[in-house]
């Protein structure tokens, strides 16, 4: 015999499993959201929500082990008082009865209804189990706003109780009262990561799980206050936070880009062309004179060619930024290179028709930008093996026009990409951790 029975939803005809048969009075159909009265053999519709079953932190029907007992999530309600809204999951085990999981933001509490009535000393404190519990939240109307799943009373949206809470250390006693019933519930804190890893999603259909399936191993769900809190239990860690994290990351990237672009405005640009003979002598030109206005600024040195015959060749470029006042030179070098060929994987190319050298912190001053270039050729050993007669000769002595552009300022793309990677790391780690957890 399994612990559940099935009814047919009078609203949509769907099969609704009753997990706590005999106790359950109202159940929300998981297909159409209708709230059904199952206290009597003939099932009645109580309310028609017409809303899809919400995405719950713990799915209805999921099971987990807390305090050594396996619990099934059978009900969920959203409640609110004048200042805060929270949700409560109803847990059930046929041998252990009911418990509550109260969920506010990232805070979880495990609630056990008291059989005994705490001694009420005065309005501000009660005594229970030898401890004095101080009033924390004075009596206030608490209203149920949404309901899903099964309940042992006919809960519905709009239900109201008077609720107060008393605290002792990290534990809470919650008091609720309506016209004909008074209940006390003892609440202890749980660690959120323990809850999420304890509760496993239900099987895909209504078929009963075989009892041989061992219940999920229990995490230490009881929250040790203070130092032992894991990072996953920190308040900013929420399951629903991922879109937020991505948004923050994207905004940060945009901000960094806009900021760097603004700071990296090109304040001056000079250009020059130079004919370089392959395997010829080194040639030199003054690209232009630049002035660094800020205390230090980046100088970007670009070089390239528009000549499509520049293949399997490279040009070594030595730059010197010669300070006109001091004749002190800041040196940098770059290579313009482009290779192409064919091997067992097909055609390949390497390099590009453009090269950039960044000198990130050039002190204020006026500089002559001097570029010296020397061209070389390269022979593909594989192509040489099937040598064409003129393969060698064709490259020697070619002359290519190289252009130079030197700019003061400009976007520091290296810095930008580094920042981008750093910004992307936290969401990436989050995805990894959660994927592993799932």
């Amino acid at each position, binding site marked *: 015999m399994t612990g559940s029975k099935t009814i047919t939803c009078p609203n949509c005809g769907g099969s609704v499993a009753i997990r706590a048969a005999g106790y359950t009075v109202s159940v929300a159909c998981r297909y159409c959201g209708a709230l059904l009265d199952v206290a009597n053999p003939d099932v009645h519709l109580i309310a028609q929500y017409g809303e899809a079953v919400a995405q719950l932190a713990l799915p209805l029907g999921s099971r987990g082990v807390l305090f050594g007992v396996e619990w099934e999530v059978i009900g969920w309600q959203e409640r609110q008082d004048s200042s805060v809204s929270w949700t409560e999951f109803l847990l059930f*085990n046929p041998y252990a009865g009911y418990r509550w999981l109260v969920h506010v933001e990232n805070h979880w509490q495990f609630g056990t*209804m008291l*059989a005994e009535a705490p001694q009420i000393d005065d309005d501000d404190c009660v005594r229970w189990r030898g401890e004095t519990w101080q009033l924390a939240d004075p009596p206030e109307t608490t209203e149920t706003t949404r309901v899903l799943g099964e309940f042992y*009373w006919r809960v519905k949206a709009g239900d109201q109780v008077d609720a107060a809470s008393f605290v002792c250390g990290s534990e809470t006693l919650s008091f609720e009262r309506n016209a004909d019933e008074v209940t006390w519930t003892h609440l202890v804190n749980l660690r959120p990561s323990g809850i999420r890893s304890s509760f496993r999603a239900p099987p895909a259909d209504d078929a009963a799980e075989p009892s041989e399936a061992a219940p999920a191993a229990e995490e230490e769900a009881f929250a040790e206050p203070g130092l032992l809190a894991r990072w996953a239990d920190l308040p900013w860690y929420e399951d629903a936070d991922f879109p937020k994290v991505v948004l923050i990351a994207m905004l940060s990237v945009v901000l960094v880009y806009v900021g760097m672009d603004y700071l990296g405005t090109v304040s001056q640009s000079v250009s020059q062309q130079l004919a370089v003979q392959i395997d010829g002598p080194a040639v030199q030109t003054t690209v232009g004179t630049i002035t660094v206005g800020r205390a230090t600024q980046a100088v970007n040195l670009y070089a390239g060619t528009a000549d499509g015959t520049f293949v399997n060749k490279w040009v070594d470029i030595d730059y010197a930024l010669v300070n006109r006042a001091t004749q002190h030179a800041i040196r940098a070098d770059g290579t313009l290179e482009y290779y192409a060929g064919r091997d067992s994987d097909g055609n390949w190319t390497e390099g590009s028709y453009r090269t950039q050298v960044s000198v990130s912190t050039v002190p204020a001053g006026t500089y002559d930008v001097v570029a010296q270039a020397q061209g070389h050729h390269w022979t593909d050993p594989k192509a040489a093996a099937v040598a064409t007669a003129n393969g060698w000769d064709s490259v020697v002595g070619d002359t290519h026009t190289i252009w130079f552009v030197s700019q003061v300022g400009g976007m520091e793309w290296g810095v930008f990409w580094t920042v981008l990677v750093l910004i992307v790391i936290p969401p990436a780690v989050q995805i990894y951790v959660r994927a592993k957890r799932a």
Partner: protein
Amino acid sequence: MPDISCPSCGGAVPLRRAALPYAVCPYCQSLLVRDDGDLRAVGKSAVLPFDVSPIVIGTRGSAEGLAFEVVGRVRWGWTDGAWNEWLLAMGDGTTRWLGEAMGTFMLLAEAPEVCDLPAIKAFADGGAITPGYRVTINGQRFRAADIKQARCLGGEGELPFATPPDWTMTSVDFRNPDGGSLSVQRDAHGTSAWLGRYCELADLKPSGLRRFADWALPEGLQ
């Protein structure tokens, strides 16, 4: 104890306690009364709806230092729910009731003297009780925690009374700070009081609990 044939359907009605006058046939739900070893059908008891109570007729255990066997059950319903009252036949020939509501249990023995208390007498005379209503018994202060208008949904096994489907009552549960429980029930015939305490299922050291294919029996209850 030998089984006796149901006079209505001929099915074997297992009788566990000779002292209990009523029994419900497990096959045809006939309500049977026992006169000098003979069974006589006196009506029908409702078929109890499926529930997931861990207790069944025949579950054994111990309470108050005595072994017991569950021999009967009455199920009560109110507008928004239901509860079970299980009859325990104790090793010394007495009986107790084990109330089961929302997964909590209370072990109760009849306490006729409580009905003489003025606060209860007022209720017996038709007075109303609201949550928080106080009663002091032997120096212990009880407060009313739960007041329900209940209708008998049916019975099974052997019982000290008949369980006709039109039977209604007012049931009031009182609690005290030490886990004590007082249940006062008023119906058309009078008022009775039951005193005891809340307990955990494991406290009863039960054996022969109901098994569910999709639930493991907790270690402490095997």
